């Protein structure tokens, strides 16, 4: 059974490589990143040699790998056919040989190998002496086995949920912490480290509680052995092995249940309330109501708002964590935040997908199209204005320049107007289908439309930056004016300016859309929800 399932996994992997579809591209990119993680992980762990906080840092890295194994299989649930027990439900298979086979299948592939190679960096970075290296060579495979068993337990026990709409929603929400982590590791920490905000000593003691988690047991066992405490090292490894056995037992039980349990993925709860809010305010209100509901119920929309907040924080992070507080970064955050609000909604036809047909069949005139775009903007502004204002105030407080929140909010208001207007125009002139690729919970531009995404982002960021220049100049020239006069004047004028920009965008978009509805419908039809 183990051999058969390993062969199945290898066949799935080679078929993905041969495939000319996006799955093939996903596989190649995934394998490339696995290689980067293997080499990069080994190198980073090896660099810890001689550092006072080497075991603390190693524990953090071991825990991060375990978290990766916990989260990523939820993403890859549809990608790896061996993760879903339903695929094997119809075959007459006994649970224990099946479990052994699935475990072997899990250990097959680029990522398990990358994980093993990366963690073997401890043989250089943390282990000392023959005993230390020997314990490292036992602890690392145990850590990898722990990760695989944990991932199997989670995916098997959540299999029914992950097949359902709610499970897919959950996978989309996981994009938020992953995106935040990528930004943290790729932008915030390197920038803060470059400015002296973070040093290796900053991590000393972070493993106070992590050392009792299974990844911490593995890391500390290596240190104990290296420091001449073989008894403690063996005790930690035995405890880790016991945890793996318990997880394995739980997984086999879960697998037994999953093989004989009916799929209840269609179950759902009833919504409260009956009326479509705002529907009484004409077509604009009706469309605003639909977009407002989608901003709350559609996971992708919530992810976009969270990503906007993360991006705004990241822009200011180096100043917040660094020794020099540049007040201008709060304004830069507002510009980038507004630009990304526009970018994320600059392809609303593709994002709406095939249901746009229902709207297109009712949008009969330029007037109705104006109502459609302004209704959409209204719903987005209801969220974007308080969000960007709150973040601007928060960032200004974090850099200890609270008054900087005023020009930042003014820039955010003007920038949002420009961003929404631009997004309306781009929705019509640069519409492209959105598709869901295998292994990715978020929809992306359909193959061949990647440049449209880049173009939309560039147009929004540049457009917003240009549009808010007068507001930035006005804020600079009035910086010495009394706050009681400057604050309301700046905010009201910027809001009015933003409103005018948004209105202009609506007018242009409606005029352009009037002659392009059939083409927009085709874009919508070729999108997937």
């Amino acid at each position, binding site marked *: 059974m183990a051999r058969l399932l390993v062969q199945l996994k290898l066949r799935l992997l080679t078929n993905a490589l041969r495939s000319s579809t996006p799955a093939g591209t996903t596989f190649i990119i995934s394998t490339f990143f696995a290689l980067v993680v293997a080499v990069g992980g080994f190198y980073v762990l090896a660099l810890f040699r001689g550092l006072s906080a080497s075991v603390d840092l190693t524990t953090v890295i071991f825990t991060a790998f375990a978290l990766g194994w916990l989260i990523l299989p939820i993403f890859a649930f549809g990608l790896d056919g061996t993760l879903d027990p339903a695929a094997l439900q119809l075959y007459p298979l006994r649970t224990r040989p099946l479990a052994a086979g699935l475990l072997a299948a899990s250990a097959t592939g680029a990522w398990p190998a990358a994980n093993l190679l990366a963690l073997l960096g401890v043989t250089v970075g943390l282990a000392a002496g023959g005993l230390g290296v020997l314990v490292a060579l036992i602890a690392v495979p145990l850590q990898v086995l722990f990760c695989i068993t944990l991932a199997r337990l989670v995916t098997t026990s959540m299999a029914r949920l992950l097949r359902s709409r709610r499970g897919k929603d959950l996978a989309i929400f996981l994009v938020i912490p992953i995106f935040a982590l990528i930004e943290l590791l790729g932008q915030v920490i390197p920038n803060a480290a470059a400015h002296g905000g973070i040093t290796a000593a900053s991590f000393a003691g972070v493993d106070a509680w992590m050392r009792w988690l299974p990844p911490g047991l593995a890391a500390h066992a290596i240190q104990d052995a290296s420091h001449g405490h073989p008894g403690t090292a063996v005790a930690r490894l035995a405890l880790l092995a016991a945890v793996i056995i318990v997880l394995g037992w739980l997984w086999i039980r879960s697998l037994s249940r999953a093989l004989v349990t009916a799929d209840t993925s269609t*179950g759902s709860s009833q919504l409260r309330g009956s009326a479509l809010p705002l529907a009484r305010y004409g077509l604009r209100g009706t469309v605003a109501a639909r977009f407002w509901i989608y901003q709350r119920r559609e996971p992708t929309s919530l992810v976009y708002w969270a990503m906007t907040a993360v991006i705004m924080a990241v822009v200011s992070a180096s100043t917040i964590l660094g020794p020099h507080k540049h007040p201008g970064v709060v304004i830069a955050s507002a510009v980038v935040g507004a630009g990304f609000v526009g970018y994320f909604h600059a392809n609303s036809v593709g994002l709406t997908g095939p249901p746009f047909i229902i709207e297109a069949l009712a949008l009969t005139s330029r007037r109705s199209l104006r109502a459609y775009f302004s209704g959409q903007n209204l719903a987005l502004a209801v969220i974007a204005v308080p969000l960007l204002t709150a973040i601007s105030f928060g960032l200004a407080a974090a850099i200890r320049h609270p008054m900087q929140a005023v020009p930042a909010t003014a820039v955010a208001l003007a920038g949002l107007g420009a961003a929404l207007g631009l997004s309306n125009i781009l929705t019509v002139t640069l519409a492209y289908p959105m598709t869901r690729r295998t292994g990715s919970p978020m929809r992306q531009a359909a193959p061949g439309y990647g440049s449209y995404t880049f173009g939309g982002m560039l147009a929004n960021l540049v457009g917003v930056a240009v549009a808010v220049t007068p507001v930035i100049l006005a804020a600079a020239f009035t910086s010495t004016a009394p706050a009681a006069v400057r604050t309301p004047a700046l905010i009201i004028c910027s809001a009015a300016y933003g409103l005018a920009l948004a209105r202009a965008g609506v007018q242009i978009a409606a005029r352009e859309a009037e002659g392009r509805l*059939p083409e927009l419908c085709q874009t919508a039809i070729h999108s997937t929800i």
Partner: protein
Amino acid sequence: MNQPTSRTAAMELQPTAIEEAEVGEPAIEVRGLRKSFGPKEAVAGIDLEIAAGSLAGLVGPNGAGKTTSLSMMTGLLRPDAGQVLISGLDVWADPVAVKAVIGVVPAEARLFERLSGEEMLEYAGRLRGLPVAEARSRAAQLLDVLDLAADAKRLVADYSTGMRKKAALGCALIHNPPVLFLDEPLEGVDPVSADVIRRLLTRLAGSGSTVLFSSHVMELVEQVCDHVSIIDKGKIVATGTTQQVRGGKTLQQAFIDLVGPRATDEEGLSWLGSSSS
């Protein structure tokens, strides 16, 4: 050898050879409609007339051009050539007027997944300009008739295929359109839901509205349609009353005779069956 006498029969049953039995003014008129996607000609110049009050079926094998034709008739896909008139109004010259008089149920129910069934129908009604109270009232009535009242507050994302089809039909009917287009309305629908849809379409046509739908289900077309058009390789190969197109045979047989049987070699399945080892 497989291009048979049936193909010859198809030639004899060209649309011009069938005497049209007009029962009223045409609600749908299609003239020389063409559409190509690259080198492939999906619709190769079709002409069609559907009388007002008809319940008409458009049947054809997969890839025959049914969905492309319906998309062009409803203003969702720009044709390369040809004209479509709905109640005398040109779909491509006066889309505003045409959209007001048609309802469309696309092949895949294209609904807003994150709205409840109730919100979905109310939204469709409001988009069509119905007052709030009227939109809510009609939405409730349609949900009731379509047997969706118990699921009115559930998200469309959690609906089954049959429920989606019924909800899509509700969206298309909420403004009481004189002309209704449906693309494969019974695809993937259970018999109970199919019966609900069938009864609603019959009732609609009985009240004077015109219904044109595409379908693979010959029995359904034969039972409910008074007018049938058969499309193959982008061309209408037969059109007329159901009686005329059938020509004394079942519609299924007439269809196969017209579009030609698809040859299959079942020699390789000698092992299949309980008498084989």
